[in-house]
């Protein structure tokens, strides 16, 4: 029943792991050749693969796990998807309905453990609930603000036979979708931006989720308003566009942060305005007289920043509705844009080239030169993530995937594998630090088994680099438990897993190593031994306002 329902929903891949409580489903898997099951090596890997698959393909990712430890191993992956609004369906086995509550073998309260990291969840104890529940789950996961939905199915239900019914219509009275745009507010917002002296637009993941890149660009050009993106919004606006401010937030570009702090009208589209974007909240955009907030989730309004004009709507529909009302612009706009250009000159992204050590930026720049905008980059968490965000010029949506809201180390490798399943037509690059990489490195077997063209760029700095940088800069320079000298020899590790790998220590070897990776079909890893003291800049010290960003020292 479960598998038929998944076929009906158009599912192509399932990332999963069997066990006692979902054996009845696995027994019939071979009867459904349209459903391709990818056996992972750890359930967390399954959740991240489904997540990467969903982000790359736009279709919901599907995960199977057994009860108890299997289901609980999904929690981090569910949270990662939940924080970043990724559509996912997790189907977990539960003990027999008659055993629920008796501490049966491998029983755990999965609904209880996951309800704060899922958009919705179901416990299915009767077979007649199943078709409706699965259909509803897909609807809820993929509509509105997307998110993971968990279905916990008792083992006896999986075995039960019932009349095959196809659920036809959906009636979920408690599920409200915010579709319509308040035209009055749209008009007001457009006029506020046009009349501004120093407008700034910030764009988040919601712009990508609603495919509003085109509308955003049209609107920004009409309003001659510069656009910065959040970490998750990267790709929503072309980095090379003259109005681009690149990335905002506490590790954003200096010119973007200056623009935000000096803006008189700030419009935030499809974003949560979290603490990584605002830094010290009371000092966020202190000159803004008007905050405009557009988001499909009404609970985001005023959660962190109280907007003067709010639009609870899909980003694309909202921008579409606003465009005709932009009208005449404030004449002084040229001055503002010139000011931003001056800040761009004054605070460029820069790094140290010449101390003889391999710099992460050198690696990324070479990678970008080859891939241009024809590849997906999946980053892990830490310094590697921010370097990958800042040193590529993403000019199309969907090319940069990372765990922004949850910051889950170990995300990149499985998510890159999932992304490759979702977009086999595009090269997929996984950029990771050595710390995060070993958290889910067992999934290399999946890449090898399926001969997946996933190229892994390890930015190996022999430490938990981001934490080391924080300790150096903000915690009195005390380096505590961040040393990763004792790590496997990654080339040998790859050999053991059955994939080719190279170690690179010198600048001159970057290009040949990428040549080798590109020549090789299937997975490939390059262990770049980078400058262990390389840091992420700009960075706003913890607890400070955005205007207090620190920059990379100027190097000769």
């Amino acid at each position: 029943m479960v598998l038929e329902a998944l076929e009906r929903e158009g599912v192509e891949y399932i990332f999963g792991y069997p066990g006692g409580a979902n054996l009845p489903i696995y027994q019939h898997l071979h009867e459904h050749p349209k459903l391709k099951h990818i056996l992972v090596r750890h359930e967390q890997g399954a959740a991240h693969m489904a997540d990467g698959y969903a982000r790359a393909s736009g279709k919901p990712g599907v995960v199977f796990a057994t009860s108890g430890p299997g289901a609980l191993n999904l929690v981090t992956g569910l949270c990662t998807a939940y924080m970043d609004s990724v559509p996912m369906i997790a189907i977990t086995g539960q003990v027999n309905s008659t055993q629920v509550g008796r501490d049966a073998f491998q029983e755990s309260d999965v609904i209880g453990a996951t309800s704060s990291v899922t958009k919705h969840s179901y416990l299915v104890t009767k077979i007649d609930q199943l078709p409706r529940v699965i259909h509803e789950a897909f609807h809820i996961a993929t509509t509105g603000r997307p998110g993971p939905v968990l279905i916990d199915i008792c083992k006896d239900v999986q075995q039960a036979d019932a009349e095959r019914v196809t659920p036809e219509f959906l009636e979920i009275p408690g599920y409200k979708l915010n579709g319509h745009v308040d035209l009055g507010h749209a008009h007001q917002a457009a006029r506020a931006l046009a009349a501004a002296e120093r407008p700034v637009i910030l764009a988040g993941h919601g712009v990508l989720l609603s495919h509003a890149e085109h509308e955003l660009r049209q609107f920004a050009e009409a309003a001659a308003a510069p656009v910065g993106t959040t970490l998750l919004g990267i790709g929503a606006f072309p980095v090379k566009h003259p109005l681009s401010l690149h990335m905002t937030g506490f590790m954003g570009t200096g010119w973007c942060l200056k623009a935000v702090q000096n803006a008189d009208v700030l419009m935030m589209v499809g974003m949560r305005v979290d603490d990584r974007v605002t830094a010290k909240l009371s000092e966020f955009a202190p000159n803004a007289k008007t905050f405009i907030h557009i988001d499909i989730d009404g609970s985001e309004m005023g959660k962190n920043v109280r907007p003067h004009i709010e639009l609870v709507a899909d980003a694309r529909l909202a921008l579409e509705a606003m465009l005709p009302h932009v009208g005449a612009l404030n004449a002084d706009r040229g001055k503002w844009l010139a000011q931003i250009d001056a800040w761009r000159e004054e605070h460029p992204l820069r790094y140290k080239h010449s101390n003889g050590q391999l710099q992460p930026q050198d690696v990324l720049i070479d990678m970008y030169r080859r891939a241009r905008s024809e590849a997906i980059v999946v980053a892990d968490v830490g310094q590697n993530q921010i370097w990958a965000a800042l040193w590529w010029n993403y000019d199309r949506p969907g090319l940069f995937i990372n765990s922004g809201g949850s910051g889950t180390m170990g995300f990149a490798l499985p998510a890159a594998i999932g992304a490759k399943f979702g977009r086999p037509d595009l090269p997929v690059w996984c950029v990771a630090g050595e710390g995060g990489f070993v958290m889910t490195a067992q999934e290399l077997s999946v890449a090898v088994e399926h001969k997946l063209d996933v190229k892994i760029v390890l930015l190996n700095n022999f430490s938990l680099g981001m934490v080391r940088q924080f300790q150096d800069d903000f915690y009195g320079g005390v380096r505590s438990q961040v040393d990763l000298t004792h790590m496997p020899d990654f080339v040998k590790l790859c050999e053991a897993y059955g994939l080719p790998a190279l170690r690179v220590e010198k600048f001159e070897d970057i290009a040949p190593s990428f040549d080798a990776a590109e020549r090789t079909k299937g997975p490939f890893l390059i262990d770049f031994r980078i400058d262990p003291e390389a840091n992420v800049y700009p960075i706003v010290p913890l607890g400070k306002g955005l205007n207090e960003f620190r920059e990379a020292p100027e190097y000769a």
Partner: protein
Amino acid sequence: MLEIKPQQAAPAATPKGTDRIRVLSVIVEDGPNTLTKVSGVIRRRGFHVRGFSVGPSRQPGRSRITLEIDHGHAEADQVRKQLERLVEVLEVEDLTGDPMHSRELVVATVAASDLDALLKKGARILSTASDGTTVEFSGDGDEVSDFVHELARHGIVDVVRSGPVVMRRTE
């Protein structure tokens, strides 16, 4: 389970001086997960329950929850917005500050035999036994608090008190 703080001097339905309290009337779908989800949101968002009651609504399969919530450091309207995100929640009505009927129930057994003062306040006798007399009383939060105060002078053997139920008052 819900974190319901026992209150000696219980606040009225809309306590004076605490503008962080929201009074909400919530219609939910009955189901095994509903209460977990509602209480989960309250806990996770840093809200506190001050009053809670639940009972069937007019529609079968749906219940009405009355909540008095301290929204803590969050924006006041977040309680409503966060509850509305739950699929199990069908309707949230925020009655804070509106004219309303807010009623609580108290049932108590007292040792004293002279119950005049209680009866004058409007108590009703439910039963009499060897250890005392059991009475009930309903009223708004202030009235119930006054009544409990009065009970203390009659030698309380046992007392139970409900959370509030509220209804918007139409003039």
